[in-house]
């Protein structure tokens, strides 16, 4: 007890805690930065020595990225991509968290919907794209549906797991203090599911971006997917890699955005 108290007291001193955290972060990041730099440098060297036409050195990829940014190609593609992506991801979040919560809390929902979700989760979503085209046509609706289909499953499965992860003794404690079902949900189950839901959102957003590009490649040549197809066919791999970088950044941004939303819309967590 005294050790914990002493340590806690030490960390509570102004500056000490935050400083050690900052140092720790720096150390961890330095390792990541160094390893990334080493990888890129190695790639650069290998690509230049081997002079393999389809493995452009990073400097050429960056140059392509620069050119495509300046001439507006990327911006134009992004504006076409982002609308369907945002609508799709937003719907997947609402549906995924909603249905995941229902399955996690209700036995009937679990018995009726659970098997379908388990089966579909392991199915390749790409295989369903032709079906979606037949059902919904070649328009933006179909691309939105593909985004939802990709992003939905990680969110629903993780939300369900989170809802079932709440410790029984905490629920009993809340009941003992007079909490009803609704209060137990808001004050115990949902906050207990926070980490699971955040994981589901992170995975779901990345999958959704993947679905978005898949949709743009397979359904209609629009947005970034069209550029992927175009540069891929033309074997202009420096441009292809440049677009891949844009996609990764987009995926990253979507994840961060979802986590921010998670923080805002989860009362009782703090």
């Amino acid at each position, binding site marked *: 007890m005294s050790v*914990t108290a002493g340590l806690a007291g030490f960390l509570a001193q102004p500056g000490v805690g935050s400083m050690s955290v900052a140092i720790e972060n720096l150390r961890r990041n330095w390792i990541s930065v160094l390893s990334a730099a080493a990888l890129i440098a190695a790639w650069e060297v290998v690509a230049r020595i081997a002079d393999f036409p389809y493995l452009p050195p990073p400097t050429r990829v960056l140059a392509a990225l620069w050119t495509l940014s300046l001439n507006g190609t990327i911006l134009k593609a992004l504006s076409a991509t982002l609308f369907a992506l945002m609508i799709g991801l937003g719907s997947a979040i609402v549906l995924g968290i909603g249905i995941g919560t229902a399955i996690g809390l209700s036995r009937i929902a679990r018995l009726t919907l659970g098997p379908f979700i388990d089966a579909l989760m392991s199915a390749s979503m790409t295989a369903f794209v032709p079906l979606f085209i037949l059902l919904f046509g070649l328009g933006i609706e179909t691309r939105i549906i593909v985004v939802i289909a990709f992003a939905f499953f990680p969110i629903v499965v993780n939300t369900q797991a989170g809802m079932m992860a709440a410790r029984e003794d905490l629920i009993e404690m809340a*009941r*003992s203090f*007079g909490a009803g079902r609704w209060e137990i949900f808001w004050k115990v189950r949902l906050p*207990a599911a926070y980490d699971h839901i955040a994981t589901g959102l992170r995975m779901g957003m990345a999958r959704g971006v993947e679905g978005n590009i898949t949709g743009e490649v397979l359904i209609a040549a629009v947005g970034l997917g069209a550029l992927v197809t175009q540069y891929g066919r033309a074997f202009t791999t420096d441009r292809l890699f440049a677009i891949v970088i844009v996609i990764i950044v987009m995926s990253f941004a979507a994840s961060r955005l979802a986590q921010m939303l998670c923080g805002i819309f989860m009362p009782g967590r703090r």
Partner: protein
Amino acid sequence: MLDNSPSIQFRDLVKRYGSEGGGSLLVLDEINLAIRPGEFVSLIGPSGCGKTTLLKIIDGLIPYDAGDALVDGKPVTGPGPERAVVFQSFALLPWRTVRQNVAFGLELRGIKGAEADEIVDRYITMVGLKGFENHHPSQLSGGMQQRVGLARALAVNPRILLMDEPFGALDAQTRNLLQADLERIWEADQKTVVFVTHAMDEAVFLSDRVVILSPRPGRIHEIVDIDLPRPRGEEIRTHPRFVELTQHIWDVLRGMIVRDQEVSA
């Protein structure tokens, strides 16, 4: 009038647990007990004697099958504001700070803002956690976590405090400190306390009466009056009467445990 009527009363209480295959297991049988307001009563007995079940019945967390469980003369139908529980597992919300955990019960009763702050501060000070208000449970030792659990229960100002092996997960030294603190807090505003424990010295140190339950089915075997003076300090632990009472309870329990082992052997 209130002083003469029992705070908690069991009349021929029976509790069964349904078991697989339609049969049922008798957990508590013919429990008759009346606990006075302000009395400190411990329930002690071997595993399977139903002491935790009995505590949860008083809190209204689990139903009973026959007889009566009365709190202030009224049948228990569910948890109520005059009762609060301290749990063996502490049952703290890990994402909340000490202060937010202590405020949990108040929050559910709609007490917020300055009023809640004042109450929370008072009980955090009372259990000796001043300075740790903004720590999370994971940053605290077991003893400190249970102090949070105690403050949370006291903060809703219950007339009845139900404690389910609250110090069972703690080491011996921490346990002694918390017993002394609990005794001091109880002396200050004599709540009715029902205290489930495995530890004989703990039961004797804290209680007015110790109820010894026998297992399978849980029945009241003997009720021991603890006629030690109050307030009780550390020195009471070496009092001849303390040693005698502890020894007596052990003798009774040992008899049960030995018999139990012979039956199952």
